Structure formats: C-alpha cells, structure tokens
C-alpha cells in the first residue's frame, strides 16, 4: 500500500496566542499533519482555503471581516472543518448533534485528540456537506434583532445615532433624513428597508415618506377637513399623517 501524502491543514484564528497553542497541540497530537497556512481573518482565510485547498480547516467562529460560519459555507463539501470557539457561541448548540466537529477554547488536549482521531477517519471519505448545520447555526447566532443604532452622515462626518433618539425619518430624493433633537443627518437605507428593521411598536409609518418615533409625539391634531398632523415634543415640525395611516391613531 502506497503511503498516503501528508494531510494538509489551514488554521484560521484571529488571536496569535490561541493560534500558536493550537499549532503546537496539533504538532504533538498529529505530527504528520502539515499546516500549510495560518490566517487571521475571514477574508485571508477564504483566500488560503481556496488557493491551497487543504484537507482540514480549523476555523474560529468569531473572526474579523467574515464570520467562521460564512467561511465554512464557502468550502462546505470540499474540506473537513473543525470549529474552534469560545464557550458561549450560540452556534455551538446547533452543532451539538455531532455532525459538525468543534473544540472549545481554552482547548483541552483530550478533546482535541478526539477531534484529531475523528478527522483521521473522515479523511478517507469525502468532506461532509455542512450547509444544513451551518444555516441552523447562522440562524441561532444572528437571531434577528431590531435596529438599535444607525451610522449616519453629517456633513463630512459619520456619526452613530441610537434609534431611540430619532424623532422621525423622512425620505428625501437620494437619502433618508434622520432627525434628532440635536439636528439632522442622513442614511442611505431606504425607508422601506428601515421600516422592516425598526421596532414596529415604537416606529410608525405616518406617510409614504415618513416614519415617526411615537415616544417623541406630543399630540395628534385633526381639523374639520379630516387632515391629521403629528406634533412633536421637542421639535417644531408638524408631520402630516396621510389618510392611509390615520387608522392607527384613531384606534387610540
């Protein structure tokens, strides 16, 4: 029987110390394994994986530029993946059924030894398609949370604005205007997308081009012609409520 070529691996971990530790542990547990590259972020990790096509990849889940889960999705079926992660990653729970291997940081030698044993066996077969587990893990780790802050343009400057400070959003020709008590800035996100990501209890659309934060409403006035206006607590602007959106106020 011809000797199998030395198995190859890539280590993707942003912090140097755990990376060095992993390298050393692997050298002890699996001397034949040839670590062909180490990467410090998702983008360079992906480059290493696609160019060097290693048989094994050790991937940290939390990485700059691209998460370890996204990275694994790119090479699923082409390389055997072992995730390296700190204890609290929600994604780990999706892997608990054993189909996807992972080791926890700080790495315990016996646990890594077990992963290495499994890898040696798996090397004889084709790498598993991880996509079902990855999509579940991704769903677990980025559970949809409402938008909490916005990066807005303010002249030449960029500024972070917490959404609770926003009085109202108004769509403009190119931008969406973000009005707070301190002043105005703009974002590129269109109103429609914004509406989907804001807390619907807190932010009400009152017009085709306007979303108001109800926490900042002082009163709602209606005249004899049925026109409805929103008056704000700390801003002189009157915001018209178009016919289609008046129902929500009338129900109050």
């Amino acid at each position, binding site marked *: 029987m011809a000797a199998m070529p030395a198995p190859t691996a890539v280590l993707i971990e942003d912090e140097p110390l755990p990376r060095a530790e992993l390298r050393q542990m692997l050298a002890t547990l699996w001397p034949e394994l040839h670590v062909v590259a180490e990467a410090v972020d998702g983008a360079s990790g992906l480059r290493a994986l696609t160019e060097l096509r290693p048989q094994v990849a050790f991937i940290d889940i939390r990485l700059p530029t691209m998460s370890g889960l996204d990275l694994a999705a790119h090479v699923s079926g082409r390389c055997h993946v072992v995730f390296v992660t700190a204890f609290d990653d929600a994604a780990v729970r999706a892997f608990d059924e054993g189909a996807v291997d992972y080791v926890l940081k700080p790495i315990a030698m016996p646990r890594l030894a077990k992963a290495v044993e499994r890898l040696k066996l798996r090397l004889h077969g084709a790498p598993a398609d991880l996509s079902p587990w990855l999509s579940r893990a991704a769903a677990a780790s980025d559970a949809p949370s409402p938008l909490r802050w916005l990066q807005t343009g303010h002249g030449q400057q960029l500024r972070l604005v917490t959404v609770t*400070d926003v009085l109202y959003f108004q769509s403009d020709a190119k931008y969406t205007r973000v009005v707070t008590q301190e002043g105005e800035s703009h974002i590129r996100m269109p109103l429609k997308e914004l509406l989907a990501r804001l807390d619907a209890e807190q932010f009400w659309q009152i017009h085709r081009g306007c979303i108001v934060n109800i926490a900042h409403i002082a009163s709602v006035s209606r005249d004899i012609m049925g026109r409805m206006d929103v008056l704000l607590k700390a801003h002189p602007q009157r915001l018209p409520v178009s016919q289609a959106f008046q129902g929500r106020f009338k129900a109050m």
Partner: protein
Amino acid sequence: MTPDTPGFDPLSDYADGRRMLWWTLVAAALAGTAWAWTGWTGALSLTVRLWLAYSGGHMALWAFHRRGRALSWPRLVAAVIGATLMASFAGLPLAPDFVVDRLSALSWLVRRIALPLGFGLGMHLPALVLRVREWRQHRQRIAMAQAEATRSALQRQVAQAELRTLQAQVEPHFLYNTLAAVQSLVRRDAARADEMLDHLHEHLRQSLPAMRSEQSTLAREAQLARSYLSIMSIRMDDRLAFRIDVPDELAHEPFPPMMLSTLVENAIRHGIEPSARGGTVTIAAQQLPQGLAVSVIDDGVGLGASTTSGGGLGLSNVRERLRALFGEHASLRVESRETGGVQACIVVPAAH
C-alpha cells in the same frame, strides 16, 4: 377640547346646538302667539331679546365645540362676549320704542342693550369660568399621570439596561478567550502569563461589584478600562497600544459604572481588531462648562468600514442608562475623526 386631554370636553354642555335652534323656533312661535293675543308689550319684547342674547352666546360656543380643535380660553370668552353683543344689537328693532334714529343715541342704546347683554353673559361666563378651572385641574391630573407613567417607564428601562449590563459585564467570550491566551502563554512565556493573570484578577475584582452601586468614580472606571486594555493588548500581541489620560483632580468625580468599558470594548472590537496594523486607544477626561467629558478615541478602521447600522446592545444600552440617570443633561456622541478612527464621548453633568 385639545386632543391631549382625553375624556374631558369642557364644551360638552354646548354639544347640542341643533336642539337650541329648534327651541328658538318654538320660542318664536310662542312669542308670535303671545303677540297676536296681547299685542307687543314691553315684557314680551324684553323676553324675546333676552332669549336672543342668550342663544347668541350659546351658538358661538356650539360653533367652537363643532370645530373640536385646540383653542385658547381668551378666544372663547371673547367669542361669547362678541356673539352676545351682536345678538343684543340684533334684538334692538324688537324694542317697543325703537325708531331708526335712536340707533345714534348712545344713552338709549346702552339702556336697551344692558339687560340682554348682562343676561346673556351672566348665563354663559360663570359656567365657562367653572369649566375652565375644572378643565385645568383635569389637565394637571393627566399631566401628573403621564409624568408618573414616564417615570415608571424610565425606571423599568434602567432596570432592564442594568440587567443587560450585568449579563454583559464579564462577557464569557472575553473570559474564555483570555483563558485560552493564558493557556498558551504559560508554556511560551511564563512571566507574561503571570502578568496576564494579574490583569485578569484585577479586572474581575473590579467589574463584579461594579453594578451594585449606581455611581462609580472616574478613577475606578479608568482602572477597569486599564485592566481590560492590558489584557487585550497582550492577547493582540501588542497590535493594541493604549493611553489613559485622566487628570488627578477629576479622578474622584462620580461617573456611572460600566459605560467607559463599553466604549473601550467597541473601540477594540470595531476599530482595532479589524485593522491589520492595529492601533491605539486613548481615554481622555476633561471638565467642560456643561459637565464632565470622557472620550474614547481610536485610530482604527473607522465607522465607514464596518456595517452601516446594527443591532448591537452596548451603545444603545449606554444611551438608555444616561437618559435614565440624567435625562437630557447627559449626552453620548460617537463620530468619525478627520484623521481616521472614531471618537466616542460621554458628557455627564458635573456633580457639584
């Protein structure tokens, strides 16, 4: 009357002006009958004129009620006076001694108008004043109830924000990654491992009781940030440098707990970590006219490089807690710097 005083309509007595019109017709019919029987007597004339003056004021209030919008009380009173005056004038031709020439005789006018005008105003104004007082009390009660609701909502928000801070305090991710780094250092560089454990010990000791007190001091928060930054600096293999510039005279100023740490964590996570060349985090404190300003400045990748918006809890958590503690007197501002990187600044009102 105004939309912000639900459940109270000070003009509810004047809601049914239509019935008033109908009664006017009935009264006119009665007056006509009386006139047909007895002729035009002074008493009959006066009754009709009093009725006219009264209904004038009533119709004016009815008109206001129908508009149903925010109005001012002076305007309401002026309208009643105006309408009653006009109705009293309108009734003048019904006076038994009316001749057109007399309209220019002031003393006659005053004598004939005084009674209807006094009657009309007497019927409406005192009632209106009472309703004003009642309405003001009602509005005050509502304002108090709203203030109470806001206060309890704020208290709830503080509780929630504190709970989240408590949970986020020693982030498990931070702890386990630090332990992983220590594990590696123990074999490679025992002295560095020892140093790291000292910082970790300091950090845990400082952060665990922090949330129990509502106020911490700037010195204490800076110390917490220092131990965190020291740990991260070792973990990031000296890609992270830091400077803490808190003047001695500000060290004992009160400052809310765990806010500075949040800004420092953000600076590292979103500014320095994604940057290949690393960077420096600077903490600076200074006394401004509007209060104590504490800034966290980094020269990392800057705002534009990360996502355009997010669901991260840290920043909105700090904002909520500031608002709960100081209302509008505190501020949090996070913006890009011209020279690259981000500056985050918290201003809290001076303690004295």
